[in-house]
């Protein structure tokens, strides 16, 4: 009886949760494009997860987009349209793909000439479909997955470097930095969370590293949702004799990995974050303290050497009382891309705006090799992943040299 009761309970629970998950998304039909686009302010849609588990980043990004709109209006709005103002229409994806989809539809129906978003690949995948169907440009700020860009979509663009680009750069930087330090990398152990994000990073890194003649193994994965300790996994790294440990994970699990590394002290020359959700975050330095010192991370990043980025971030700090994260800077860039598209198209016709975006060049506030310019598949061809390192409690850009704030220190604290 008891087992049956529990089973019944678990079943009821699953049904309820499923029902709760389905709620709240009311698709408003596919028609209704271009309602009142020609009058009033030019509307740009911003889709971010401002509630739920990723609410902090979602809020950051929405504010980043708002700062971009304010900056454009302060400079006199869209000049080619006689100084029409720009307005941000916001939507909350709640971190759910189906909510993101219906919100995207809503923003388009409300007259958005373009969308920015969405922080999560799964949500962006759905929004990209809506954008394509409605022929409205969708400029992604944070979206790691490369799969969206292999569908031949014409209305999807992305500002951040993709997952494969980051992993490839991580392998290349590792080889170069380790050689410059006189300790050329031999064998890399790869620890990653097991969904598309971590596994994709591991695969791309392995492919790139093997081309450079660097051995990768063992490849250890874990479930980021349930993992509560990574000591055994780090012991496995220690036993394997690898001289570098690459980590691709989210915030919580990457912090767990750092704790385990400090406990096990494997014989490494470096800890190497790849698209890591923690190792280039100031919060990681606060939470981890000495744990994270000298950790490397290859990722997209706001351009710390750019004066305008510094001004933007200072403004954010003044207005919102928190440091501006890279995601928010990317959202700022994405809004600028759409606004400049409208400016050059000289109108709010979404298809003309799309063509203008496809051929546009926008100065980024994030690290790049040049202005934001899109390849035929919609990816930003000048996006540049940058290597960062925690040095004396500060996240510093250290490589490549032209973007470096200080020199990389290729070592770990427990073996100096």
């Amino acid at each position: 009886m008891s087992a049956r009761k529990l089973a019944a309970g678990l079943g009821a629970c699953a049904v309820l949760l499923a029902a709760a998950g389905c709620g709240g998304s009311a698709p408003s039909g596919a028609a209704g494009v271009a309602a009142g686009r020609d009058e009033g302010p030019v509307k740009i849609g911003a889709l971010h997860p401002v509630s739920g588990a990723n609410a902090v980043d979602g809020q950051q990004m929405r504010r980043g987009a708002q700062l971009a709109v304010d900056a454009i209006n302060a400079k006199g709005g869209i000049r080619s349209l006689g100084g029409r103002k720009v307005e941000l229409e916001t939507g909350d994806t709640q971190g759910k793909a189906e909510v993101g989809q219906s919100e995207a539809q809503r923003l388009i129906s409300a007259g958005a000439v373009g969308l920015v978003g969405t922080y999560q690949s799964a949500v962006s995948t759905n929004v990209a479909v809506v954008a394509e169907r409605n022929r409205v440009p969708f400029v992604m700020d944070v979206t790691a997955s490369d799969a969206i860009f292999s569908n031949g979509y014409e209305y999807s663009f992305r500002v951040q470097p993709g997952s494969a680009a980051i992993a490839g750069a991580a392998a290349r930087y590792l080889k170069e930095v380790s050689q410059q330090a006189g300790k050329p990398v031999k064998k890399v152990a790869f620890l990653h969370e097991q969904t598309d994000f971590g596994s994709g990073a591991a695969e791309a890194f392995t492919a790139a590293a093997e081309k450079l003649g660097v051995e990768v193994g063992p490849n250890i994965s874990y479930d980021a949702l349930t993992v509560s300790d990574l000591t055994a996994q780090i012991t496995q790294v220690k036993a394997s004799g690898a001289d570098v440990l690459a980590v691709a994970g989210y915030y919580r699990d990457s912090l767990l990995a750092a704790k385990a590394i400090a406990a096990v002290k494997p014989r490494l020359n470096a800890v190497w974050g790849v698209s890591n959700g923690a190792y280039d975050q100031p919060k990681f330095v606060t939470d981890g303290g000495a744990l994270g010192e000298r950790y490397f991370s290859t990722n997209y990043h706001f351009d710390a050497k750019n004066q305008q980025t510094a001004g933007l971030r200072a403004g954010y700090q003044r207005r919102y009382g928190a440091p501006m994260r890279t995601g928010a800077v990317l959202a700022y860039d994405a809004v600028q891309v759409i606004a400049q598209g409208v400016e050059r198209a000289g109108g709010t016709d979404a298809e003309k705006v799309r063509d203008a975006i496809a051929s546009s060049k926008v100065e980024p506030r994030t690290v790049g090799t040049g202005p934001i310019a899109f390849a035929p598949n919609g990816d930003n061809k000048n996006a540049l992943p940058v290597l960062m390192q925690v040095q004396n409690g500060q996240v510093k850009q250290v490589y490549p040299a032209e973007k470096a704030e200080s020199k990389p220190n290729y070592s770990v604290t427990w073996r100096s």
Partner: protein
Amino acid sequence: MSNSGTKTEPPPAPAVRRGPLARLSPGDGTGALLKRAAATGGLVAVAIAIALIKSGSGLVVWQSVVTGLLMGGLYGLIAMGLTLIFGVLDIVNFAHGALLAIAMFIAFGVVQGTGLHPYLTLLVAVPALFLIGAVVHRGLLSGTGGASLENQLLITLGLSLLLENGLLMFFGAEPKNVALPGDFQFSLFGAVVSGARLYAFLGAIAIGALLFWLLRRTRFGTAIRAVAANGPGAELVGVNVRRVHTLTFAIGTACAGAAAVLAAPLVTVTPTLGEQFNITAFVVVVLGGMGNVAGALVGGLLIGLVEQLTTIYMDGQSSLLGVFAVFLIVLFLRPQGLFGRRS
């Protein structure tokens, strides 16, 4: 229900005891129990041996075993509260994980606000959770509204959603950390043991022992067991059943409070953290035999081990895969759990 001798000091598990009371004690004949314990131990030894062959590194397996046992103690403590509530009140408490999260935020808040040593927050979090448990039971579950199974499920599930989203609203989604001052680690035959994990493990064992003592050796514990065995019967001999129910529920949630404080330095504190532990705790409860407090501790240790060994057996798989494989096998072979009795 032939049992009326609950007032005497318990002899070593007399075989005549029948009915749900036995859920609170491990015994249905010491011999059979020993046999099952030996079989379980044997299987664990075989599993470890296979892991040794699979990984080829003694150190890795040894570290996994140590880590698994340390984590398992904590799982056991979380599950103990759950199994107590189930054994005595027959309530499947889905809000257990959310209450755990509440306790962690209390610990976090007190450490932030007063700079107290994290473990001293036990003095705040445990009574607080005891009170919350009592209020929840009195306010929501003990009335007629909480009488039916469906209502209990909806109430506890609804409560968990309410608590989690309340935490999200007040504290935000930003993950928080509780640092343990003076944390250290040492090597146990090559395996790394961190102080925080060892303390959590020892604390879990101690609280488990305390709970066991309370149930077996005190008048109040006897009353709890009497209510579990036969509510109307207990009422007839003068036990205030409603009060015992409320206190038992409160003790169960206080266990979650203690577990939360012990675990706080080990995890990143987020409002949704309860979910992570809830699933595991339910598996442990069923595995150990529903309502069996000692079984919950042993079940916790087992699940901790299974989690770690799974990552060796099937690298790249969720450790929950192994946990549920073991869960299904146990349900198939012994539906009443490893240490439960047929009812």
